[in-house]
């Protein structure tokens, strides 16, 4: 297990290096951000100074090398062009909030999707199954922002029940202090994820239910409840765990949209702001941390997989 973990970590580092290479290649294709950063009024000298100062006149591999140097020796992720802050401190401030949002939504969607998926599998092709299937299909077909807007329209605009904006604040504590504001963004994100997970849980449960050992369990005289929750559940969770790892990027993307929509002060909003203001170091830092979490999420998923499935031993 330890050996496996070490190897996976090395592998993850290689993947992250790959992410950096891709991002720097992409960045080198982007228009030079200097003018956009320093503004309409700035003189060419200022523009030039900015370029030199940020190595924008250097080839991408030099920039990459410099960035690695910053990351490894200086423990920073560069400085934002626009925000007068190190990218590290932006991430330290905003990433926890985003992971709170995404994490809670993910948790809720999983916790709801699992029993519902099982329920559907048990009542397969009955009206209730088809109703949930229909709902999850529609949710799944909805662009995140559209769903979010509809929720805003319904709950803040029409019923005045919930705030249309996420809580504001720089710390997780401040965010949590205004829980009502979290409901809509979390609901949006959770609904979007729920759709996929419940569908998958349903198939996974159906598949598990068709396994021979379920028949064995029934032949023992166990009640359906025990059959489902002791014998079937863990087996059908195994593929779900991997799925969650794999869908992390998609979940984070939905998180980005949700943050933007609800004015949530997290890295998703930061990312869009950074990109539209060509604040590349910030955008890069956020991409990197998201990649780190994706890779980490997959690692955790694999470990959870091993924990759930005794057949897997690394």
């Amino acid at each position, binding site marked *: 297990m330890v050996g496996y973990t070490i190897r996976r970590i090395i592998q993850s580092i290689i993947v992250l290096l790959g992410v950096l290479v891709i991002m720097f290649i992409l960045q080198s294709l982007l228009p030079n951000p200097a003018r956009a950063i*320093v503004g309409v009024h700035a*003189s060419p000298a200022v523009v030039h100074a900015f370029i030199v100062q940020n190595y924008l006149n250097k080839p991408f591999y030099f920039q990459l090398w410099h960035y690695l140097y910053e990351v490894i020796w200086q423990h920073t992720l560069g400085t934002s062009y626009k925000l*007068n802050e190190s990218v590290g401190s932006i991430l330290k401030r905003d990433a926890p909030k985003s992971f709170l949002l995404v994490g809670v939504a993910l948790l809720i969607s999983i916790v709801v999707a699992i029993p519902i998926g099982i329920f559907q599998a048990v009542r397969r092709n009955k009206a209730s199954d088809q109703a949930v299937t229909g709902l999850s299909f529609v949710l799944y077909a909805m662009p995140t922002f559209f769903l979010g807007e509809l929720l805003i329209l319904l709950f*803040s605009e029409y019923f005045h029940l919930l705030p*249309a904006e996420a809580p504001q604040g720089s710390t997780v504590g401040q965010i949590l202090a205004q829980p009502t504001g979290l409901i809509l963004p979390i609901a949006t994100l959770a609904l979007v994820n729920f759709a996929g997970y419940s569908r998958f849980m349903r198939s996974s449960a159906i598949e598990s239910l068709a396994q021979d050992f379920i028949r064995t369990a029934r032949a023992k005289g166990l009640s359906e409840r025990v059959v489902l929750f002791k014998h079937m559940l863990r087996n059908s969770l195994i593929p779900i765990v991997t799925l969650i790892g794999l869908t992390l990027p998609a979940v984070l993307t939905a998180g980005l949209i949700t*943050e933007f929509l609800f004015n949530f002060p997290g890295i998703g909003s930061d990312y869009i702001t950074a990109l539209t*203001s060509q604040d590349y170091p910030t955008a890069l830092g956020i991409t990197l941390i998201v990649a780190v979490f994706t890779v980490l999420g997959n690692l955790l998923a694999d470990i959870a997989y091993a924990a759930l499935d005794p057949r897997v031993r690394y």
Partner: protein
Amino acid sequence: GSSSSTTKSSSTSTSTATTKVKGGTAYFAEGPGASPNYIFPLTPSTNFSVDNLARFQILMYRPLYFFGVGNKAELNTSLSLANTPVYSNNNKTVTITLKKYKWSNGESVTSRDVIFWMNLLKANKSAWAAYVPGAFPDNVVSYSAPNASTVVFQLNKSYSPTWFTYNELSQITPLPIAWDRTSLSQPAPSPTAANLPDTTTAGAVSVYKFLNAQAGDLSTYATSPIWSVVDGPWKLKSFTTAGKAVFVPNASYSGPVKPSLSQFVELPFTSTSAEFNVLRAGNNAITYGYLPVTDLSQKSYVESIGYKVNPWIDLGFDYWVENYNNPTYGPLFKQLYFRQALQHLVDQPAWITSFLKGYAVPSYSPVPLAPANPFADANSKTNPYPYSVTAAKNLLTSHGFKLVNGVMTCESPGTGATNCGAGVSRGLALNLNLQYANGNTSVTQEMDAYASAAKQAGINITLSSASFNTVITNAAPCTSSQASCKWEMENWAGGWEYSPDNYPSGGELFGAGSGSNFGSYSSSTANSLIAATHTSSNPQAALNAYQNYMVKQLPVIYQPSPDNSISLISSKLGGVTQNPYLNLTPETWYFTK
């Protein structure tokens, strides 16, 4: 559009007389993604923004000269730290006398504080956003403080006094001597101490380094012993790195208007719709917000929940640029008739009423009509090239163009009066690209309308949209051989704001080779007219000559200039004025019963 908006804005300050209550907290909505993040007034270009300067620093650190009187674009003598400057010696010597202001640490605002600024600026000018080689402070040969309240500048040549006051002296912010150090552990120096670090270039460099580093630590803004020394009406109480700033009145503020509010809060937002969602939800989370242009139809709703709708007009004008060095169309852009044709297709009145619901000012000239200002002359008030597809068509056909497959195509090249003009080759069809900044429905609508009108005139315009920054990056001055010179027209939909260069003389805009001349417009007449606005001893005459030329010559394509924002001000809030240079003065605000 223009007249109505002017009257609208003027009504603000004279709001109905109701009982004024002391105290209360006002919440001000920051623009999307525009939250303050740099506190040191000697601001580098990356942070040189309205949000940092006019809406943040100025609340705490007053500039030597304050601009904007109510909603009029003028020097505000009463809010300035100094009396009106006196020019002498053929406009080569400037003498400034300071009024009696105090820093919050009890020290007086003296000429030494101005010298401190100048020392820092001289030593670190390249780090300063507003620095243009040859201009301030290069054009100041020497500066001195004969006594505690007087500063004297010797200039390298004669300058137009108005220009120099509005554009150069306007940049000065006296700094407290308490900042004249290179580490936090050092005690704050005494203003009378000799040999303070700023007096040597090396010292000034390290003081700047120190202060700039301090300004980089956003989390300490509210607690730093440096930044807490203020001479403005407000003091920072708390500041989150996300951009939420809480101000409380500076108890020892010595200026004329003292705050009535007990707290003033600036709130960050990711998008205009996010801001508007919050505002609509009610509960007074925002006292002073804004209405996104797309939601103009919501005017009556916001009024019903207790907001006044007031446009905030800043001094500026709007346009988009053509690339005079474009290898294909550059020669055509250089033809006045063609620019006239393009301008004839801009239907400013219709755009303003339909798309901007009246919240805009037409632009015909680099010297704006609104807000009220002493600069615009009669020539800038009428549009010489009003909307007319036929006029545009005629201009083209009378210069050798013919419709070929619905597209105007040059049929008779040459330099004669009825030819297409120098460098325009036969068969050149008018298939132009126009890129505009997205995120703003009205701009999209305008560009759509423009492309449709152009089509009727036989000009095929392909639209594309991109982020503001992409547009502005694409619109870089270039020479025709450069690969990046392929762009034809770029509209970043922001035009030009006269701030902090408060004088609308366009020095950086249209001068050949000047920094913000994106389309590489080049005309020797224009160059000399611009120069005159900087140096003439008869400023207004020079400015009039300049604007008359620019109105006719169309160095850019003018488009309606939307109001900076459509403010939504709680009807409980009184005393609001909307400064044309966008300076925020919550000290004049108060709550009413």
